[in-house]
């Protein structure tokens, strides 16, 4: 029997299935064994129902005499046999189908296991990569910080050097000529101390670079004092007055002495005798100050007192 409505229902149920061709060909052609199996139940029930109602004496006698009882029983038996056979057929097919499903399920499990393994590997890989990236990031950050510090240090150092050059170029150009020889050195040192050079020395106090800078500074002061004083040797001594007397001439600033005194007012004669002598020009020299100075002695003393006073 071809049952169209069932086709519609099943097509609706499986409308997303791509196997509609199967429906067209197979779905509505009931197989004989299925019909015999399912319909046989109703046949047996019909006969059994009648059989139950034929239990009276005469009914049994009549059915036995006419052979209808035997015919009915035979029909029941045949339908039951068909049913059992149909059940076996169906069960066999169902078992085969179940076996296929189990195999398919096993295959799915295999693939799931494979995917698990792959995902685990991926997760490990991902974690390792992440850790490596974190390490790399830390390392790079440290390196960048280091480079940044280095650049900052170099820049700082360069700025200090530039100021050093600037101040000594200025001195060489005669911009401090209004002061005494010692006053020029002291003025140059104060300018450096209040500028980038001073910051650098304070920041790097005690380091090798700072020490080198101060040595260089001392050397430059010595060299410029030797040039200004027109002496042949840095160690050649001269009386204090020659070092601290103000120059005379039209280029001298009248207030230079006061300005120098103002800048060096922090100096105590006991602690900073050279700076005190140069800036304050006392009538009586402090006891710690020698009466003869060389360019080297003066430069070392001034650098030491100006940059080590804190």
């Amino acid at each position, binding site marked *: 029997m071809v049952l169209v409505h069932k086709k519609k229902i099943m097509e609706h149920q499986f409308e997303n299935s791509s196997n509609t061709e199967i429906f067209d060909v197979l*779905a509505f052609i009931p197989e004989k064994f299925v019909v015999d199996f399912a319909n046989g139940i109703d046949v047996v029930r019909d006969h059994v129902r009648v059989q139950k109602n034929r239990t009276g004496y005469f009914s049994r006698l009549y059915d036995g005499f006419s052979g209808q009882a035997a015919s009915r029983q035979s029909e029941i038996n045949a339908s039951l046999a068909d049913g059992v056979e149909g059940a076996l057929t169906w069960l066999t097919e169902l078992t085969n189908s179940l076996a296929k499903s189990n195999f398919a399920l096993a295959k799915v499990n295999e693939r799931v296991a494979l995917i698990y393994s792959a995902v685990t590997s991926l997760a490990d890989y991902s974690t390792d990569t992440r850790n490596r990236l974190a390490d790399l990031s830390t390392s790079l950050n440290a390196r960048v910080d280091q480079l940044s510090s280095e650049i900052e240090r170099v820049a700082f150092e360069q700025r200090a050097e530039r100021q050093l050059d600037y101040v000594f170029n200025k001195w060489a150009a005669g911009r401090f000529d209004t002061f005494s020889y010692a006053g020029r050195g002291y003025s140059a040192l104060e300018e450096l101390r209040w500028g980038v050079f001073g910051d650098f020395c304070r920041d790097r106090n005690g380091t090798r670079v700072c020490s080198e800078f101060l040595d260089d500074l001392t050397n430059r002061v010595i060299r410029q004092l030797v040039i200004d004083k027109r002496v042949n040797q840095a160690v050649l001594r001269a009386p204090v007055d020659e070092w601290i007397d103000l120059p005379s001439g039209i280029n001298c600033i009248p207030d230079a002495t006061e300005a120098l005194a103002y800048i060096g007012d922090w100096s105590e004669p006991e602690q900073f005798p050279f700076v005190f002598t140069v800036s304050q020009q006392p009538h009586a020299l402090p006891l710690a100050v020698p009466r003869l100075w060389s360019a080297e002695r003066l430069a070392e003393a001034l650098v030491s007192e100006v940059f080590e006073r804190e």
Partner: protein
Amino acid sequence: MEDFRVGLVLSGGGAKGAYHVGILKALCELGARVDAIAGASIGALNGAILASAPTLEEGVDRIEELWEILAESSPLSFKMPNYLEFLMVAGLHLNGLNYINGLILSAQAVYGSKLPEWLLQWLKVSEGLSSGLLSDTPLKRLMDRYLDVDALGSGLPLYVSVFRSRGALLDLLSCLIGELGFMDPPDSEFLHIQLLPQHERRDALLASAAIPLLFSPKFVNNTPYTDGGQGGWSKMQGNTPITPLLRAGYKTIIVTHLSDGSLWSRQDFPEATVLEIRPQTLISRHGVTPDLLGFDAKKIPSWIQQGYDDTMHCVGRVMKASAARCELRVSEGAVAKSQQPFGRLDQELDSAMKRLMKTK
């Protein structure tokens, strides 16, 4: 799809033919396909109305309309057995009314009021029929319209079961002997209505329902035929005429029964896929004769309902089983198809993982 044509067998059973209405309604609702019909007795007449209709649905509506009118109270002053009424408006003429009346009157004289009520009603029936009261009723008019032998020519193939009469008494006697299991009457014959000359088609239909004694045999091709349900009595060969459909090549056949525990056996037709619609509860209401002749028209709706319920039950069971098998096959196919891409995907995954492991 020629091999999957569906045949429908409408068994005979007198007034219980109302059961066919319920069956056909249910089949129609289920969307069943019917390509040919074979009927005996009332099955032949119902089948003729169905086969001559332009569509199955229309045919079912017509049969339902006829049986509903039959179920209504009779326009006559007496209680007419509805099956007889059905047959007579279809064109059969009661035979030997006076002879039957004489027998009943004699019995009444002997047994008095102990006679069954339906037998006593017969006298009134006889009286009414003699006056021709059935000649113009709504049922008669409907029957004339729906039992259209002209339309049958282009309708569904219709086979009817007829019994070659050897005389009414001998016919009945042979059925009785068959019922007792001594010897079956000869097999019924099957007439393909569409192959008969047009003027013989109606007679062939009426012959299939012509109860011996009550109705005269009908002549088809100069052969007297009576009710087709008589042939092959013990195995219902004539009353459940599957044979002509099998001969015509139909392998899938719906067989309907109008009796409780019919001894017709599907085992005799192993080559066919047979879906039987059998009563799942008692179809008999008052006994063989009253049910056959239909003395109680009120039973018609109950038979219609029973036919509907039983069909839904019997066919539904098969449909559920078939659908389950179909779903199983489809699901198997879906599983197989879903596995196809994995051959390639497995390789791709394997290759990708190998490359990944190399770079680790």
